[in-house]
């Protein structure tokens, strides 16, 4: 079970991605738990996740997230802007899976 956490300012736009990523995961046959939260919530939810992906508009928060993520021991990255704009669930999912390794 891979646990993928997405974060943006209010968890709204990333939640669009969640649905698409779940669809992509189903087609691929990967068992995933994917959820989106607002940035302040992300700090707490990191403990339960295997990877954290940040919306590109919040990329200035990366440094702050990285600190906590380092403590919990999970990778953090920024979602590719084009994939974000196209709500490309498959691209973001494979990036997340790559990061988890």
């Amino acid at each position, binding site marked *: 079970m891979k646990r993928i956490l997405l974060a*943006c*300012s209010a968890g*709204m*736009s990333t939640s*669009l991605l969640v649905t698409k990523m779940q669809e992509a995961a189903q087609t691929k046959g990967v068992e995933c738990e994917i959820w989106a939260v*607002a940035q*302040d919530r992300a700090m707490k939810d990191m403990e339960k996740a295997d990877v954290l992906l940040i*919306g*590109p*508009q*919040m*990329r*200035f*928060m990366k*440094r*702050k997230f990285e600190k906590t993520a380092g403590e919990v021991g999970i990778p953090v990255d920024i979602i590719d*802007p*084009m994939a*974000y*704009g*196209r*709500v490309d669930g498959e691209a973001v999912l494979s990036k997340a899976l790559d990061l988890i390794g």
Partner: protein
Amino acid sequence: MNKFMEVLENFLMPVADRLNNNRYLTALRDGFMVALPIIIFGSIFVVIANLPFLDALIGEDAYKEYQRVLGPASAGTLSIMATFVIVGIGYKLTEQYGGEAIYGGVTALAAFLILTPQVVDDVTGVISTESLGSKGMFVGIFTAFISAELYRYFVGKDLTIKMPSGVPGAVSRSFSALLPITFTLTIFLGIRILFLYTPFETVQNFIYTVVQAPLTALSSGLPATIVAVLMIQIFWFFGLHGQIIVNSVMDPIWYSLANENLDAFKAGEQLPHIVNKQFIDSFIVGMGGSGMTLAVIIGIFLIGKSRQLKELGKLGAPAGIFNVNEPIIFGLPIIMNPIVFIPWMLAPVIVTIITYGAMATGIVPPPTGVIVPWTTPTILNGAIATNSWQGGVLQAFNIGVVFLVWWPFLQVLDKRYYESEEEEETSGEIRQSS
């Protein structure tokens, strides 16, 4: 152009980083988030209690009674909004320091109440909701910052009452916050006593006269608002969440302005401010998201020929109705796209001027100060925010304006995409046939 963009990006990123990671601004923003559900609850009941035309429908007396019974919903929430924000800030700041957050929250509230005048018209033992609401907002914010800092300082000094060894741990721990809180609140009592002997008499009076009133007066003007709107747009142009960055600085002011309007609205007086939280949230952001991209989506449906834009329109429309527009911002893309730079920067400024003008001349009433969630669809949110149909009509008009500003630029973009799609197709065909 590229060099210029690079310089700007290099300047903006650190600004965004600093504003967003600043301890106090983060606590401020998160503190407002704590209060938000309560503020929205109160706002909903202000809207219900002031439904237009209801007085004509059920009669004057019944309407008064209706308003009277619904009154406590907003009086117990919106009118004393500062208290929730203070607890929120005290909590969040203490949490950042890794302390017992709930003590940080209540200590901030207690410190604020110690500073608050407790005499109204010679009646002692009462606190005016005025000082717990919009007028108390700034004192409250500073108090929460300072009290959380003091609390942390005294906790760090490891001031604990040593209990005999037979006392259970849970009991001795409950004393651990006692001394830090005592010292913190004593200092605030001292501050109150100091101000008693100045011409201002209270801290509230001092801050209100010296900081809050001049600052809000400045920020409610058209020039300052245009600057704020331009800042939001420029941050977004570089793919940074402009709204959240600018809000972290402006929210205390915009909320105060909204609350002053609300007090006047409930009292049936003229609304003092045109610009407030809802001016920004409903009339600038609440038209499809930052940059009013609902008009762009409409434009895509009307003139879009390229597959890429048409796909984007379908993808962006459902979210756009609820003012979530990241698909459009990143998908069009608007980010770093020189073709759309002009409409992106220009349209919100024009809309700001039109909206301000319409409200200043009285064609459309200013926002009453009720907080409408930013995800409320456009036209509806304008009508609710101003408690009038004119607010909705103004938004519809503004969408038309934004569309006109975007129109030529969108056509250029669409043509480019269309041509490259054609090219791809023909080259694909050639490859197939050969």
